[in-house]
């Protein structure tokens, strides 16, 4: 069965610093991978998605992620964090485009940004 591990429950960075949130997946085959963001008392919003192809994908608000099959990873990055990025970030995997809504999520990483 597929699974997603986000090893960091909480990450704290200063505003303007770079960011990496880690995600490791377990899936037999070619995964479809996603990063979602959840702001307080809101639903999830898609940041970016990976469909088989270019391993580096660009998302909204300056986020990008890189797929690595050899490392089974899909880490999220941002060059310069803004205070408004304070939120919970979820990595997720699905089996393919026909079932992309059937997602397996990681436990989430809470990002805190300080001035």
């Amino acid at each position, binding site marked *: 069965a597929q699974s*997603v591990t986000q090893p960091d429950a909480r990450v704290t960075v200063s505003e303007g610093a770079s960011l990496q949130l880690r995600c490791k997946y377990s899936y037999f085959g070619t995964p479809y991978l996603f990063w*979602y963001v959840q702001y307080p*008392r*809101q*639903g*999830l*919003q*898609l940041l970016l*998605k990976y469909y088989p192809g270019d391993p580096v994908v660009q998302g909204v608000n300056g986020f990008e992620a890189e797929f690595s099959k050899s490392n089974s990873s899909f880490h999220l990055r941002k060059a310069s964090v803004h205070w408004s990025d304070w939120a919970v970030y*979820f990595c*997720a995997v699905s089996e393919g*485009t*026909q*079932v*992309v*809504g*059937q*997602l*397996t*999520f*990681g*436990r*989430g990483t809470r990002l805190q940004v300080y001035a």
Partner: protein
Amino acid sequence: EAAVTQSPRNKVAVTGGKVTLSCNQTNNHNNMYWYRQDTGHGLRLIHYSYGAGSTEKGDIPDGYKASRPSQENFSLILELATPSQTSVYFCASGDSANTEVFFGKGTRLTVV
């Protein structure tokens, strides 16, 4: 902008009672989903649907039923609510191409 609306946003229910959570989408999406979110678990899939009249079991269906009476509406039903079902429930919709899934804002359910 895709819209998924959940009602109620907050609900307190008694143990053993019946609870119905409602979801409406105006995106004309075929597929709809119910997830629950618990601290330390991320989101887990309960039930999903491919269209009106269809419901399928997700990863954690026990204790839940689902109903899809129309393209727009998808309900999650707890026939006999238990305290372990206290959680935040999210509904989502996606089209057949499933390039993106859109989530509602969630329903916070407390079973006492």
